[in-house]
């Protein structure tokens, strides 16, 4: 049991730099979502089911979704700007 705690801590510790270092926001959404799941798993292992549920809904789903929506929106803005620039 204790081994599991250390393993998940190390995994979270290893995943954090991975998210930070994925410089492309689109790739980052994927790593962030994965990181969110890892965090939720960590909360489960450390006996915090309430927090884990919040983390799954927020950290692994809502936040990446919001980022995706924001990115889509920005891509469209840029496309439109380019087209207007050409006119």
């Amino acid at each position, binding site marked *: 049991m204790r081994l599991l705690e*250390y393993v998940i*801590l*190390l995994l*979270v*510790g290893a995943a*954090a*730099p991975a*998210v*930070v*270092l994925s*410089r492309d*926001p689109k790739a*980052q959404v994927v790593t*962030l979502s994965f*990181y969110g799941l890892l*965090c939720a798993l*960590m*909360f489960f292992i*450390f*006996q*915090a*089911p*309430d*927090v884990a549920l*919040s*983390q799954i809904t*927020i*950290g692994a789903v*809502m*936040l990446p979704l*919001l*980022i995706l929506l*924001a*990115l889509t*929106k*920005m891509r469209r*803005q*840029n496309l439109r*700007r380019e087209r207007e620039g050409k006119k």
Partner: protein
Amino acid sequence: MILAYLPYAIAAWIFLWGLYGIVTSKNLVHQVVCLAILQTSTYVLLLAIGYKVGGTAPVFADIPVGTVVVDPLVQALMLTDIVVEATVMALLLSMVVKANELAGTVDPEELRFLMG
């Protein structure tokens, strides 16, 4: 025994990586995500502080009162923290989107409207 300090070291580690990400970021969206990473360091810290060896989750639906459980307070604090995170991120992202609409860039190097 040094392993017992691992969670604190991980918390500091994540904190510094988050700061590093914010400082070196070339994209505001990336910066916001790094802020989210920075925040998870506080989760790790709080989680480790409230943990008890052999404790179970502080829900007495199936277990009798008096069983050894982990500290519920830090979990309540973390719940608040998660809500705060989600809301601040939503607000920051909308600022980024709006800035992109008006300035056409999300690179902080190019967003230089406020200087001196």
